[in-house]
């Protein structure tokens, strides 16, 4: 049995804003019967066609899908379209006091339906901002659930996902035949790679303390997430002078390629911290 918060249970048992709005200004539909969950979101705008005055939903899905839909309609009522667009799936989950990680895709579905509704509305006869609908762009990565690389990369970046399993929890991609998992891992690496590029290059001169801090930061932010993507991990055992002692964990431990991984860690630390760093693999 899922460990749902009282808020999730309450929104499931007594959902707010169920139904259709016959003369809705915008309608967003995502998911399908085949996928196991689907959401149709109806939005009614004020006279200026800017602020959401009513929102209703119809949902096919599990308890958290229904609760997420209910939460979404509560959150966006009274907001302008731009404010509504800023709602993240995390905000929906937070509103419910959290969702089990395996059910995060329900909150993503809510956010997605909202984007679809607004994009469709704005892409209509009077395009003002001309928001492109990202979800429909890109190549389909997961055939089972019809999800594109553009969409997946967005969810990966927004929720800081580092493993294929997390991507499945948040989007369902990879949850059926699993054929798309290798590509999902590539997408994670791509997103992590872009983020890494944005981080500052190595500083000129370092105090000992700062050097140790920087080594730790680099390991945490730049290196471990890459290992996680492949089910591996490492731990910092000790730093003495320029020698950095690390121990591999999970898939990396006992991996025949861990020597290469150690070299990679060394190269990364030399690139981002200091040229004289030596990485030593220890048991620990």
């Amino acid at each position, binding site marked *: 049995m899922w460990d749902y918060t009282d808020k999730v249970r309450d929104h499931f048992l007594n959902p707010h804003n169920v139904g259709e709005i016959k003369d809705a200004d915008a309608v967003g539909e995502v998911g399908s019967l085949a996928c196991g969950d*689907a959401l*149709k979101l109806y939005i009614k705008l004020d006279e200026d066609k800017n602020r959401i005055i009513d929102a209703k939903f119809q949902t096919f*899905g599990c308890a958290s899908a229904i609760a997420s839909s209910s939460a979404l309609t509560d959150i966006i009522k009274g907001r302008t379209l731009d404010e509504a667009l800023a709602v993240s799936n995390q905000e929906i989950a937070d509103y419910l006091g959290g969702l089990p990680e395996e059910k995060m895709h329900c909150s993503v579905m809510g956010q997605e339906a909202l984007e679809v509704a607004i994009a469709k509305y704005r892409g209509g006869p009077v395009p003002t901002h001309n928001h492109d609908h990202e979800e429909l762009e890109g190549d389909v990565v997961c055939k089972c659930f019809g999800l594109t690389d553009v969409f997946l990369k967005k969810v990966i970046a927004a929720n800081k996902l580092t493993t294929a399993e997390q991507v499945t929890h948040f989007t369902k991609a990879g949850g059926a035949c699993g054929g798309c998992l290798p590509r999902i891992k590539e997408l994670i690496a791509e997103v992590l790679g872009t983020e890494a590029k944005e981080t500052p290059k190595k500083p000129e001169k370092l105090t000992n303390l700062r050097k140790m801090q920087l080594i730790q930061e680099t390991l945490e932010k730049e290196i471990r997430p890459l290992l996680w993507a492949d089910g591996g991990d490492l731990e910092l055992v000790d730093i003495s002078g320029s020698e950095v002692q690390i121990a591999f964990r999970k898939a990396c431990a006992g991996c025949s390629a861990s020597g290469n991984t150690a070299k990679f860690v060394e190269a990364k630390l030399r690139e981002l911290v200091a040229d004289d760093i030596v990485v030593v693999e220890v048991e620990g």
Partner: protein
Amino acid sequence: MKEIYADNNATTKVDEAVFEEMRPYFCELYGNPSSMHFFGGQVQKKVDEARNRVAQLLGASPEEIVFTACGTESDNAAIRSALEVYPERRHIITTRVEHPAVLTLCRNLGKRGYRVTELNVDGEGRLDLDELRGAIDQDTAIVSVMYANNETGVVFPIEEIGKIVKEKGKGAFFHTDAVQAVGKIPLDMATSTVDMLSLSGHKLHAPKGIGVLYLRKGVPFRPFLVGGHQERSRRAGTENTAAIIALGKACELAALHMADENGRVKAMRDRLEKELLALIPHARINGGQAERLPNTLSIAFEFVEGEAILMLLSEKGICASSGSACTSGSLEPSHVLRAMGVPFTCAHGSVRFSLSRFNDDSDIEAIIRELPPVIERLRQMSPFGREFLDK
């Protein structure tokens, strides 16, 4: 709130009489049956009695009973043993609708160089025996086909399958995972074609953590667990004596209640089925045309999702199970319903009720009363099916 338990294919209540039988073997009669003193000896006697009782339910002889920890262990022991006995044979035959205890094992073996054939089922969950005939060859080490399916209750023609294995298999072993069948339908190993059979205690009102591998006399066997000489060196490890004794009692009671299972329990299941179909439009029985266990009803409701149904039922004190993926943490509908080609419109909204001798008419009435409004409510919320349902 009275709890109505209709999820007996998942696990069952320990019968009070079973519990009473095992109780002394924790704090009073805690001897090791392998010990040479009287204190262990009296436990050994009781274990022997349990072995007899299990054998009797199966129509087997006591030496053919090997106690294990669970159905999964028995399945693993049977299949792995066959592969060790025939190291040159690299082919395993099973079905697409097996319990994960068999299916996951076979698929893992498939990744390690074994050839695995998974037999298909039709829309009612029935096997095509010609497909089996075509698949079996000299390279086949073992055919493992479940006796009855845990989700739909569909019963396979085990003896016919066994005959085909004997005719065409050139010595291939025939194993059946009978976890759902034992205690519900009569089995007779004395006249059977089965070489190895798995059963699990907690499906027939014994506690969790005890299982049996039936091993036909003369069938060569390589143990999965090695160590001491317990269970005639076929399963090492100190016996779980209290649970063994409990299972013996449970088997005795199962034999006693078999008629009830096939009479009263079946009548309750049939009534539930009939009335739900009458009250709820766009519902269908999974495997409804096939021979089924007397206690199991898998019913699909279009346009709604299983976990939501279960949670609303649970609010009313009713415990059932779903063939939908959401409850299990995986995202596809159950592999059994998918293999049967149950359309997605139904597969996500499938619910399984599995009864036992501890259910009564008031339970059935409660389900019949509570379920239709639950389905109605979720359908009102669903974006699908308007065109069919509003009529």
